[in-house]
């Protein structure tokens, strides 16, 4: 039951929020309460799986290959916890920053639905169920994106929804093909049976279809256009929620599907993933350089960072393909990807929250229109400095360790090209962070057009940002334990038999074996 809670709690919260339509205060209280209890539940799950056990839940008591199974392994539990952290921070920020109309209508219930869908995607052990969570995510994010109906929002939303629908369609096609050829959609069952496929080319086709469809969701090269076109248009709280979670669900799905199901395709796919990773990094960061708006720059950096996560995955599966499973270097590279994801979710969401704070204090996020925040708002500037340096990978902060693990994995695996690319991209990331810093925070303060924020708004806006900053520093200082957590998660990911055994324990395994 426990592992269904991160989905059920926000869903319940969303249903209750609907009852208070038109009243922002009770909705805000409900949203904060449900994200806080969602966080508590996911931390509880994380402690439950910390020692390597994998928790499963068969909904309605239907055994594994027939019913819908929820599976919480270490990686899934980490992702759910991060989702809850971002959710809580964004809800707190919304209390201070949302305008009255949005806050009293759809903002809270839709954000909660989005959070429920994200946790569902992280926890499900069934491919079709994953599709359902993806659709729920797409629908709620689409409405969040267009809520308010401003011109820019609609333009971004159309690009967003078109490409994402394309991705859903490809995913659905892949699901149809898989069900037609293998006869099961339970991921653990699929992992055992896909080796029996008569035609090995079919497995390659299926893996490619899924890779492309999740690649679109993740914003990987060459399917990233929708992301920078849409992320800067909605209110800041919404773009923070998106930036922290949506693309990462795509990355999660790629990692889950490749590591669990298509392990025989690895030597082939490893290079593909690496090339995609390199191109994603480079195009993302180059796109960011020419931008002149804080939120647009940050959107392009999401794309670039997705490349780092794929890099870890690519190195790992390429190695396993050539050296065989449980090679320590592969585990190291994979743990780099996992570490990078959890560093990135926190830092990226936080940078978007900060750009939101800049937007509501000055009325703009354009680099040319905002100046001298370091003098007028020193606390906010310090928070930005911490997060942006963490993103660029300056030592002690979480980003440094995430990149360190990745680069070390890459060097030991002998993938020098991708390591070189990643270091160069790192430098360019530092360049665009410095650009934001010099233009927005340095210089003489402008006369602010918008009135100064009142104390209450300030408290709600700054406290989640400060909290996330503390978190990124903590991950950096406690790098040892964070890295160990990532290593354990990676080891579990690469050894798919543990996942399969956890889903089919004891008697139910026989039912699964029956033709």
């Amino acid at each position, binding site marked *: *039951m426990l592992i*269904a809670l991160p989905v*059920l709690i926000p*869903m*319940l919260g*969303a*249903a*209750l*929020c*609907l*009852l208070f*339509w038109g009243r922002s205060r009770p909705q805000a209280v409900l949203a904060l309460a449900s994200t806080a209890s969602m966080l508590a539940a996911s931390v509880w799950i994380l402690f439950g799986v910390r020692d390597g056990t994998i928790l499963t*839940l*068969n*909904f*309605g*008591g239907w055994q594994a290959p027939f019913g819908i199974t929820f599976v919480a392994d270490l990686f899934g539990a980490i992702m759910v916890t991060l989702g809850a952290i971002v959710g809580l921070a964004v809800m707190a920020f919304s209390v201070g920053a949302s305008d009255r109309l949005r806050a009293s209508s759809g903002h809270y219930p839709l954000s909660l639905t989005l959070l429920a869908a994200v946790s569902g995607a992280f926890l499900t052990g069934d491919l079709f169920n994953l599709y359902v969570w993806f659709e729920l995510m797409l629908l709620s994010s689409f409405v969040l994106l267009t809520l308010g109906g401003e011109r820019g929002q609609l333009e971004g939303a159309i690009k967003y929804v078109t490409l994402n629908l394309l991705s859903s369609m490809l995913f659905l096609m892949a699901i149809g093909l898989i069900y037609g050829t293998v006869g099961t959609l339970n991921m653990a069952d699929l992992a055992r049976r896909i080796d029996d496929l008569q035609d090995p080319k079919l497995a390659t086709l299926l893996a490619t279809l899924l890779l492309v469809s999740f690649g679109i969701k993740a914003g990987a090269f060459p399917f990233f256009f929708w992301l920078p076109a849409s992320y800067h248009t909605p209110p800041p709280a919404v773009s923070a929620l998106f930036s922290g979670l949506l693309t990462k669900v795509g990355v999660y799905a790629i990692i889950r599907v490749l590591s669990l199901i298509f392990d025989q395709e690895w030597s082939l796919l490893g290079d593909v993933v690496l090339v995609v990773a390199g191109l994603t990094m480079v195009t993302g960061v180059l796109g960011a350089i020419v931008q002149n708006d804080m939120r647009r720059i940050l959107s392009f950096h999401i794309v670039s960072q997705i490349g780092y996560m794929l890099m870890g995955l690519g190195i790992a599966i390429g190695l396993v393909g050539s050296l065989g499973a449980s090679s320590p270097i592969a585990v190291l590279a994979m743990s780099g990807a996992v570490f990078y994801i959890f560093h990135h979710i926190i830092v990226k969401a936080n940078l978007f929250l900060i750009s939101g704070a800049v937007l509501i204090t000055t009325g703009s996020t354009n680099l040319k229109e905002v100046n001298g925040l370091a003098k007028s708002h020193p606390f906010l500037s310090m928070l930005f400095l911490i997060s942006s340096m963490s993103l660029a990978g300056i030592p002690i902060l979480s980003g440094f360790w995430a990149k360190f693990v990745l680069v070390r994995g890459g060097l030991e695996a002998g993938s020098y090209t991708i390591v070189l690319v990643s270091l160069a991209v790192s430098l360019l990331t530092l360049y665009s962070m410095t650009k934001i810093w010099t233009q927005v925070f340095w210089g003489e303060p402008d006369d602010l057009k918008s009135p100064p924020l009142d104390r209450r708004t300030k408290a709600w806006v700054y406290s989640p940002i400060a909290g996330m900053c503390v978190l990124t520093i903590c991950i950096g200082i406690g790098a040892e334990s964070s890295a160990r957590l990532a290593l354990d998660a990676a080891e579990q990911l690469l050894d798919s038999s543990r996942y399969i055994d956890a889903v089919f324990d004891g008697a139910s395994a026989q039912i699964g074996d029956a033709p």
Partner: protein
Amino acid sequence: MNSVIFQVAARVLLPVMLLLSVVFLLRGHNEPGGGFIGGLVAASGYILYALAVNLPESRRLLHVHPRTLISTGLLIAILSGVPALLVDQPFMKGKWIEVTIAGFEGVKFGTPFVFDVGVYLVVLGVTLLMAFTLEERYQ
């Protein structure tokens, strides 16, 4: 619309369709039907009424706002999974009791039915929310 025949027909059809939707809902467990179809049929009754007579009248007959239906339905559907937890079984596992309704003994009443009622309300609420909003813009 000003056709008298249409108006009179819609007034008669609304209660019939609501009754039919409940029949669909009840037989849904073992035969074609269920909460989804029931909700759609009920919603089309109200939509028909709104088209034939007028929108405010149809809203008045619904008594509650469609949004309330959505949230009540969601809550009912989520709560239908809880009874199984109380006897330490997986969430959403079907639990049945036999009750006597109107002299019929041994009528089976269970959590899947409660879930279906939730679906019925959600579908009714969503469909009407969309249809009424569109109709409002049109007028």
